[in-house]
Every structure is written in C-alpha cells, then in structure tokens.
C-alpha cells in the first residue's frame, strides 16, 4: 500500500485540532441553558453526529448510483466506507439523544416518530453490512450494496422530516416544530456559534475518516486479489 498522503496526514491533525476547539466551545464558550442545565451541551455534538450520519448515507447512495452506471468496484469501496461511518455517527446521535431525554423527558426511550424512524434507519443500514457478508462474489456484492444503499436511503428523508410532519415531542432546531415539543430552547449567539462550528467540525471529521476508511477498503481489496491469485 502506498504511504499515507501528506494531505491526509494534515487533515488528521486538523480534524483533531478542530475537535479540541469545538469541545472547548461546548464546555466553556457556550453558556449553560437556563432550564435544562449542562445536559443541553450534548445537543451540539448530538445534532452534528445526526447531520454527518445523514451525509454519510447520502454519499453511499450517490456512489451506489455511480457504481450501477460504471460497474467500477472502487465505488463499492467508497459506498461501504460511507455506510460504516453513517452507522457510527447515527449510533452516537441516537444514544446521546436517549441520554438527553432521560432528564428532560423523564425517560430513556419513547415511541416518538423521530426516535423510531432514526432507529429503523440505523437497523436498515446495519442489515446492509450483515447481508453483504453473505455474498462471496465481489461483483454481486457490490451490485447488491449499491441497490440496497439506494433503496435504504428512503429511510433518511423520512427520519429527517418526521419531526416536521408528525406529532412529536422532539424539538426542531431549524424551523418551527410541533407545539408539543419538550426541551426546546432559544439559542443565544454563543450557542448558535458553537452549534454551527460543531456541524462544520463533524463534517471535516467525516471527510477525514471517510478518506482513511477508503484507504483501508482499498488495502483489503489488494489483499483479496493477492489471496485469489495464490489460490488460482
């Protein structure tokens, strides 16, 4: 495998530095919310992780479509990397949401449209990883992955729009939500700056991790080819 590109090494360190700055802003720059207290600070990375989760699945569907048009296996490597990252960030989003909900809604879990649709989305993409494992042929596996990622993506807009179209207690950050939402708050300027910066930082971290994961996938492909060559 060729050595790690200098640009990626720089991006690794930039991501780490940005994460440190974002953490500083979350804990020291943004003020404590007047009603919820410190648990509200979870919101900054909770939303950022959710955004990056959606972005990952969007990347997976785009590269899936490109694969179906080109039949080039390099797009499958990118698709798999994007789904894996999407699962990781969505997991952070769901679990931190549950932790926030415990003191605010007085429960770890409720059958709210947003929570249910986000969990279904997570399970759909988890099944993507499991089902891929069962397909030996790389071309069939890639075609399956591309079609599955494309169809599975329908769960993403449903999850995103769920708090805007159904009765829900989940707060809406941008735009107006349900009047029954519990845990809403008005953002002050430092809160808004921290929120927007967290979104930016998580996007940079996503690009960095995606690049690293794609390199790992390419390495895996190389090993697979070497193994097949030896078996032939």
């Amino acid at each position, binding site marked *: *495998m060729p050595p790690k590109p200098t640009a990626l090494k720089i991006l690794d360190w930039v991501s780490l530095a940005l994460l440190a700055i974002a953490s500083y802003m979350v804990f020291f720059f943004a003020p*404590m*919310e*007047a*009603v*919820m*207290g*410190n*648990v*509200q*600070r*979870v919101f900054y*990375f*909770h939303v950022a*992780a959710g955004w990056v989760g959606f972005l990952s699945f969007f990347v997976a569907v785009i590269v899936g479509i490109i694969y179906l048009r080109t039949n080039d296996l390099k797009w499958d490597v990118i698709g798999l990397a994007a789904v894996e990252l999407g699962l*990781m960030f969505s*997991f*952070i989003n769901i*679990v*931190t949401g549950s*932790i*926030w909900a*415990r*003191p605010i809604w007085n429960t770890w879990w409720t059958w709210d449209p947003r929570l249910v649709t986000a969990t279904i989305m997570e399970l759909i993409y988890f099944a993507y990883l499991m089902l891929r494992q069962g397909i030996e042929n790389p071309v069939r596996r890639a075609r399956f992955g591309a079609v599955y990622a494309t169809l599975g993506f329908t769960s993403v807009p449903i999850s995103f729009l769920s708090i805007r179209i159904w009765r829900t207690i989940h707060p809406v950050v941008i735009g107006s939500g349900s009047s029954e939402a519990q845990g809403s708050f008005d953002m002050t300027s430092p809160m808004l700056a921290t929120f927007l910066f967290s979104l930016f930082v998580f996007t940079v*971290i996503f690009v960095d*991790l995606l690049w*690293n*994961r794609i390199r*790992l996938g390419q*390495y*895996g492909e*190389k*090993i697979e080819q*070497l*193994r097949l*060559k*030896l078996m032939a």
Partner: protein
Amino acid sequence: MINLFTMFFQEAPAETTGYMIFGYSIIFGTLMIYLISLFTRWRNFKKDQEVLEELEKEK
C-alpha cells in the same frame, strides 16, 4: 433593586451534569473505538499481506 430581588427568587438550572458527562463519554468513546478498529484492521491486513507474499515467494 428589582434585578437583585428577582435573582434571589429565580429557579436554578436543573442539575444534569452527570448526563452531560455520560453523553460526551459515549461520543468520544465511540470515536475512539472506531479509530482503534481502523488501526487494528489495517494491522491485520499488513500481517495478511506479509504472509501472502511469503507464500507467493515459496510458490
């Protein structure tokens, strides 16, 4: 004077620091586990490559 009066009677924010710590432990912990998994898989591929190249030479 009014400000001083209201200050004594306003409710303090809820004490939810423990939940915040728990939340950020999950966030940083998950990111750390993912990074370790990337590193471990890379190291395993490297070992596989070495073994396969050795077998190729023997062949």
